[in-house]
């Protein structure tokens, strides 16, 4: 890979870091509010896994939700801003390969997801007794899930013609997928129908596998979760790369 990739990657990192109040602190605070309210209301009433308090149970779900939403937000908002302001030409004119273009946006999205996730984790340590039973599983699911949603962000950012389109994807796809995935509960507490529906939601496996990394316990076998999440991430990444290579909505 030539030097073009490293520069575009660095630019994408600096871009969100320059407004970290909005891109890092705000989502961390958001997750903290969920934590305070749900933990306050439900702690003592719900115990999902033996020996794991509700606040602790909630933490991995909130971290994963923040990772997903921010990985998506990074690539999608960067692309649509560049398209709307026209400065996308600055990255379309140079001899960046399709893969370099793809990799820079995807990696920056992963970094943003992980930075926000880490922020939520650090703040959460003050409120919950977290354990890290299988750290490698934590890392594997964090990276794969942020890659999947970073890729969705690339696709949405390229497809959207205006911010309204992007808000549509965010509110009608990303939010329902993340909320109906077991962030706040174990899906075993759901009626049978909704349990079945949840099993078709890849985000459920992202959160369940991620949670396994913390507690060593989960709703389904973590290998099954990995076997769902990895192909989903690879497929979405492949699709976003193909979209870039096709020039769809970027090169007319």
């Amino acid at each position: 890979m030539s030097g073009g990739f490293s520069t575009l990657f660095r630019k994408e990192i600096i871009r969100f870091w320059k407004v970290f109040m909005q891109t890092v602190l705000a989502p961390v605070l958001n997750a903290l509010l969920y934590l305070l309210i749900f933990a306050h209301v439900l702690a003592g009433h719900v115990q999902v896994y033996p020996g794991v308090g509700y606040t602790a149970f909630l933490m991995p779900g909130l971290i994963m939700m923040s990772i997903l939403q921010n990985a998506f937000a990074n690539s999608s908002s960067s692309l649509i801003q560049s398209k709307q302001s026209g400065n996308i030409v600055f990255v379309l004119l140079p001899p960046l390969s399709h893969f370099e273009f793809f990799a820079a946006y995807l990696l920056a999205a992963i970094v943003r997801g992980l930075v926000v996730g880490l922020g939520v984790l650090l703040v959460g340590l003050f409120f919950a007794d977290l354990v890290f039973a299988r750290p490698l599983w934590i890392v594997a699911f964090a990276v794969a899930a942020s890659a999947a949603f970073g890729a969705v962000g690339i696709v949405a950012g390229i497809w959207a013609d205006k911010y309204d389109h992007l808000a549509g994807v965010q509110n009608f796809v990303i939010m329902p997928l993340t909320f109906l995935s077991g962030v706040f509960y174990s899906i075993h507490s759901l009626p049978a129908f909704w349990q079945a529906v949840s099993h078709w939601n890849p985000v459920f496996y992202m959160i369940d596998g991620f949670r396994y990394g913390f507690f060593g316990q989960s709703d389904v076998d973590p290998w099954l979760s990995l076997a769902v999440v990895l192909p989903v991430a690879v497929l979405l990444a492949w699709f976003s790369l193909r979209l870039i290579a096709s020039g769809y909505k970027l090169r007319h």
Partner: protein
Amino acid sequence: MPPAVRLRALEKRYRTVHALHGIDLDIEAGEFFALLGPNGAGKTTLISILAGLARPTAGSAEVLGHDVIRDYREARRNLGVVPQELVYDAFFTVREMLRFQSGYYGLHRNDAWIDELLAHLGLTTKADAYCRTLSGGMKRRLLVAQALVHRPPVIVLDEPTAGVDVELRQSLWAFIRRLNREGHTVLLTTHYLEEAEALCERVAMLKEGRVVALDRTANLLRAGEERRLELTLSSEALPDRLRGRVIGQDGRRYVLALPEYGELESILAELRGHDIRVDEMTLRQADLEEVFLKVMGR
């Protein structure tokens, strides 16, 4: 050496618009070339295809022998484009933008050239200013600097002096002319026809997606319209031998054709021989604007 730009049967159709109808054009390396045409003639579409911002429907485009689709990385490496729209990135400063732009071309230590560009374009004092704080003319010059960070052998300027004041326009052209002397090929689209006339060796005129005139600037000027002599005389009567030259008359004011400068002497001698005094005399030469209007009017 392959031509700087080679277009063959280049077609571009959008959903409702047929923007380019089979353009064939060669621009030799080292030329200073102008692309003229009214709005909607296809100039920007042509440049966009060259830059890889648009894809041709049919035909081919090459930059220094590199096909813009098959060999897009080499084609883009050899091309520097100043876009027509005043685009900028509000997040970054002038220097940051130029460093990023260099980096995209794989140039990670480019500060000496960046400083030179800033100096030539009058942006040195703005190096650390955020792009959004620049005036329109400064944003335009930053776009020029961004297009030149990788010293491209072929430079494309799409309406580069729109909104730039006269003094800066002069210094911008002096700089571009120097780059041309140093061997860079320059392709320019402009609405200021006098710029094309003063700077460019060759001109192509585009109308509704077709090349309607392509020649050396000097030839176009010569062929376009002959020179005219406008005279206000002391009498309304004109010597018979001059009657054949009359293009227009308004009282004592005559407009005469003057194919060659050398004939001026004989005209004046004829008038003197008939005791006719010349009160006013103007020599008018065709400019590119007249040629342009004439070609476009066809």
